[in-house]
């Protein structure tokens, strides 16, 4: 006989898995409890990753439609109070609409009325209030489109009104209600202090700049003539979807080629930036929790495998007696713990996906999950089981057969 040569003891893969499986199934209750820790850990991780992604995606879709196409430009606050002179030119709208990707643009400037109150056609009603403090804004014709506004009735003023300094006004719905102006077909008038304005339109709603809803809007030219407006205060731009970043980088230069640095451009955050910011917020906390439960799961597996080793000393001794080498003992226990981790990973990933779907359904969200997460989770579980099984398996393999047979009797 040449025992050292080809006749080393040997354990086939199929036999190895058969033995390991039988070992686990011998105590099904305990195996289930052992797996539970990994199940919880993996489920927590998968659910966390999925919910963060789902929530992030949700917030982003809400932003997209409106905010992601909105760019605004205003004068940089120089820190010298309001003495700085605006560098935004009167033809801002024209300059910006030339840029590729701009859907609409318009200037918006608060108009100082020196505290004058606003009233409509005088009705002598001693009980009712007839004079109101209402904000007046000067805008260029494109502003309504730039803030995605709709008219309820009448029309918005155009370039001609501005050039002729026509005393016309468009009312926000709030202002119209207070001034009791519902129709414009008879050209109702209102008075800002001593200045008379003809109302030519009433706004229904705007998607941005909600302050316009309670304001009186007049053409730039009119404001310059009647209220001594010096320069536009800010510009609002509506862009094509996805063009906001580009327009943001060009707007300042287009408006003030000589001193673009004096303008502040506000662009929506990059979609990716929003998404990752949300994800990282949600993730950090829950990933830590998931990691902790995984650790607990791993310790559980290690613990139970160790107990199992001590309990199965007799079996280990017998296997050594019938020719199992140390490595066969170690590998069997490793396969047992890795299998428990793997199964825990599968169940945990399923539970995690279920949690994502249930939570999403409850909130009417679209569940989003990287396919790789549930697919890799079982393998992560197996690795955890493997690592957890290292020490117990080593202990098992180091048992001397003589002692194992004696103690395991």
């Amino acid at each position, binding site marked *: *006989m040449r*025992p*050292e040569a080809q*006749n*080393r*003891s*040997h*354990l*086939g893969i*199929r*036999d190895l898995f058969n*033995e390991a499986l*039988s070992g686990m*199934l*011998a*105590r099904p209750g305990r195996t289930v409890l052992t797996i539970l820790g990994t199940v919880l850990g993996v489920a927590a991780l998968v659910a966390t990753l999925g919910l963060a992604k789902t929530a992030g995606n949700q917030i982003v879709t809400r932003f997209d439609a409106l905010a992601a196409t909105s760019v605004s430009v205003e004068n940089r606050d120089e820190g010298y109070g309001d003495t700085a002179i605006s560098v935004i030119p009167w033809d801002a709208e024209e300059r910006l609409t030339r840029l590729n990707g701009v859907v609409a643009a318009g200037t918006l400037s608060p108009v100082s009325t020196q505290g004058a109150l606003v009233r409509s056609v005088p009705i002598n009603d001693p009980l009712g209030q007839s004079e109101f403090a209402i904000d007046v804004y000067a805008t260029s014709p494109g502003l309504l489109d730039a803030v995605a506004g709709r008219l309820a009735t009448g029309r918005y003023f155009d370039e001609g009104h501005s050039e002729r300094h026509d005393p016309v006004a468009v009312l926000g719905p709030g202002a119209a209600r207070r001034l009791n102006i519902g129709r414009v077909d008879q050209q109702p008038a209102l008075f800002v202090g001593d200045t008379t304005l003809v109302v030519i339109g009433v706004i229904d709603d705007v998607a941005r700049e909600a302050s316009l809803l309670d304001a009186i809007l007049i053409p730039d030219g009119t404001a310059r003539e009647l209220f001594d407006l010096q320069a536009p205060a800010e510009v609002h731009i509506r862009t094509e979807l996805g063009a906001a970043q580009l327009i943001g980088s060009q707007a300042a230069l287009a408006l003030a080629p000589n001193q673009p640095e004096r303008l502040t451009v506000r662009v929506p955050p990059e979609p990716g930036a929003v998404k990752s910011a949300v994800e990282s917020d949600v993730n950090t906390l829950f990933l830590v929790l998931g990691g902790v439960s995984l650790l607990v799961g791993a310790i559980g597996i290690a613990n139970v495998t160790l107990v199992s080793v001590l309990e199965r000393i*007799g*079996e280990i*001794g*017998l*296997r*050594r*007696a*019938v*020719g*199992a*080498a*140390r490595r*066969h003992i170690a590998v069997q226990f490793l396969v047992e713990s890795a299998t428990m981790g793997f199964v825990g990973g599968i169940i945990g990933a399923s539970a995690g996906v279920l949690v994502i779907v249930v939570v999403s359904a409850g909130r009417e969200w679209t569940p989003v999950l990287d396919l790789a997460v549930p697919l890799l989770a079982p393998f992560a579980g197996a690795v955890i089981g493997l690592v957890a099984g290292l020490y117990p398996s080593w202990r098992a393999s180091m048992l*001397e*057969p*003589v002692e194992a*047979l*004696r103690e*395991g*009797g």
Partner: protein
Amino acid sequence: MTVVARAPVAPATAPIVELEKVSRIFGGSTPVEAVKEADLTVRSGEYVSIVGPSGSGKSTLLHVLGLLDRPTSGRYRFDGVDVGELSDGGRTALRGRGIGFVFQTFHLLAYRTVLENVTTGLIYNRTPRRERRRWATTALEQVGLGHRMDFTPRQLSGGESQRVAIARAVVARPNLLLCDEPTGNLDTKTTESILDLFDELRRGGLTLVVITHDHAVSHRAERRVEIIDGVLSERAS
């Protein structure tokens, strides 16, 4: 199985076990010499019993013979191989293929069937899978348990359990069957039937070494070796 008339052991048969001045000393502050310079030769086909009171070094001798333990000094040749030169893995392989063990406490896997328990004796020594079932069935029939193959050990009596253990020990067709108090947990009647089984295996050509403190058991063997305080001495049967 075929029953062969007991043939007188010819001195020419090859030695399976050759101990030369083998000692096993357990360390510690006061070293204990469990086996003292033992010389023993067991030839192929022999049926040897080793008797001695408890604490006499019987189990240590069995562990050394079974390659479960290394002698502290001396030379041990098993089936012509000097065991002292083998690595742990080499001894394990030799043990798995060449030696069958029967223990007092059976050491059956409680959650496996009788058949699976017997095939355990084959999974580590390269027996082809399809052969195993056949070999195990043969071994179980040999010990008279062909009808209990799908039982679990819990459903078996003590005598039946020991028969399963014997089937497991002989299934790999070892050169040597080592039995450590095989009847220690059995009543007299069952003991008789197990000893009958040993006789039968012996007639089939198996080499048996039975360690016992029971003289009734040792009387069935053709050679009796006594161990007292670690010292071996041959006794006339």
